[in-house]
């Protein structure tokens, strides 16, 4: 199973599923299938999505589940020891 952050990047870019689908030349339903993780894209589609979002393909797709965004942000916001 391939995990992805398509929904996150799409929302950040302010795109609807239909708009993103048009940009990467697939059926709008395919974006829904990708976001739900019920379909794993071809390399070509993965690269097109990465190009559309302006990031590396590894930023969108991963073999491991992504940690919750809140945890990731929380760990970045933690103050170094001794700064309190």
């Amino acid at each position, binding site marked *: 199973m391939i995990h992805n952050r398509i929904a996150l990047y799409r929302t950040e870019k302010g795109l*609807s*599923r239909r708009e993103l689908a048009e940009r990467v*030349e697939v*059926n709008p*339903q*395919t974006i*829904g299938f990708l976001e739900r993780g019920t*379909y794993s894209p*071809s390399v070509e589609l993965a690269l097109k999505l990465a190009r559309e979002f302006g990031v590396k393909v590894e930023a969108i797709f991963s073999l491991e589940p992504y940690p919750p965004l809140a945890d990731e942000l929380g760990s970045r916001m933690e103050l170094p020891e001794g700064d309190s």
Partner: protein
Amino acid sequence: MRLNQSVPSNEVKHKGYLSLQPGTARVLSVVALGCLHLGSVLSFALPKGLSWATLITSGLSLVGMLVAVIMFLCSYSFIANAPEGWIDERELTERNAAYLRALQYVVVMILVGLLVLEVASRFLSHQFTAEEFTKYLNVLFFSSMIMPACLLAWRDQPVVD
């Protein structure tokens, strides 16, 4: 897998086909396959020569065939038969899977038919008539024709923006 550069929109692709909602198509697929199979099973099971039994089995088969024609004219049937360039990679993958399932269904149904034939002739001393064979083949034919579209309808999800 190849991603076609110019996949037309659904509105363009499905022109001339009945555009059914996934829910409607699912109900129709159940009605079509259910009526065809029930009509076939009842025609073997019910006693011959009874007018009400003939009416029920013929009615079920007729409804099954008519709904099968509707399924055959819907947009899911288009996806099942569309040229490769007109569907995207996910639709192509799902279509391949649907045809594989339809093939498996036909193979299983042929084996079941042969088994029933063998059991009936050996243990029940019943010989099937040509008319009964024709009915069974009709069910197989119509079911296998619409099965890919039915499976695609069950797999489909509405577009949510």
